[in-house]
């Protein structure tokens, strides 16, 4: 069962084996959940939205075509559902989402310092604090293992802009970390 491909599972679900959908849920929940949690900054909401995303994909599974990849199709649902949720929340988020042009100012985002933090812990903390636009793209690239082309399709921005976001995020992480002298421990 574990070795079935996504498309094989979907075929089975379409034939009426509804229970097989659980395999897809187990396969994607642990990646989609952290991504949603970082976008929404709320664990409870992330879980509700994720339930909603799986339900949406289950209900529209008949519209899913075998030529496409389930992962990109599903992450598109996740990404859009989270954005809809965010746009309904507050004006502040809109500003966060609006401009690609903004520099990422990590010192502003991370208002409290943690003593004796290692690089991985700091990176995780930065990710949690980043605006949804950045954290989602980093999560799709690093956690979900998607290519820049796939991310471009999901987020509806050009491949070039995906790269801009990735590079900008890495650069500001590097600068921040250099400032904090955390690199010595690693290198």
């Amino acid at each position, binding site marked *: 069962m574990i070795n079935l491909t996504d498309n094989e599972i979907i075929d089975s679900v379409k034939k009426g084996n*509804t229970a097989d959908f659980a395999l897809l849920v187990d396969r994607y929940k642990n990646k989609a959940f*952290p991504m949603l949690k970082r976008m929404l900054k709320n664990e409870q909401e992330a879980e509700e939205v994720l*339930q909603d995303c799986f*339900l949406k994909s289950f209900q529209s599974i008949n519209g899913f075509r075998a030529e496409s990849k389930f992962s990109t199709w599903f992450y598109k649902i996740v990404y859009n559902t989270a954005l809809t949720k965010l746009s309904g929340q507050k004006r502040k988020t809109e500003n966060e989402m609006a401009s690609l042009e903004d520099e990422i100012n990590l010192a502003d985002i991370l208002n409290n310092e943690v003593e004796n933090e290692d690089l991985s812990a700091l990176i995780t903390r930065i990710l949690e604090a980043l605006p949804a636009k950045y954290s989602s793209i980093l999560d799709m690239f690093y956690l979900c293992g998607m290519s820049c082309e796939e991310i471009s399709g999901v987020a509806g921005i050009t491949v070039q802009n995906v790269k801009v976001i990735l*590079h900008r995020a*890495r650069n500001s992480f590097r600068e921040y970390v250099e400032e904090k002298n955390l690199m010595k421990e690693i*290198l």
Partner: protein
Amino acid sequence: MNCLSDDILNNYIDNERGIAELNFIEEHLKTCTVCKNKLNNLQAVHLSLQKIEEYSPSEEFTAVFMRKIGKSTINRKNQERFFAFVLSTIIIVFILIVAYLIWAFGDTTASEPKISIDFMGILTLYYNALFGWVKELLVKQNFAFMGSVFSLIILASGYYFYETRKAYKKL
């Protein structure tokens, strides 16, 4: 010598530089500690990002979800079954009404000259045997009773559809 831009270093990490550029980058890195240091730090960030961990939502997440879609498919089946029931009830009542009309009509035109009396007699006999009880049901008081039962069924089914619709949308 010109130092490497952030973009070039990032592309270098992502293995996205042209071969011609590659030689230039590696030559430069051999001689420039500033760029070498920058690259090392960027690589450290990249590696940490690659180690971001997955984690699961609450333990019963999948079970809760599967129960939810189980319910939604059961609801849809129930809805279909109930619809079939209501539809067949309506059809039966309709047939009964038509039968009654035929019976009433047949009663007054029993002496229609073009149909043989024997045939009409047999027909009336059949009607009486088959729909005798219907006749009884359809005397004036009973007719009103049937009407209210019928409209009650329609009301109940309307309410049921409304409820299932609402429950389904909530999911």
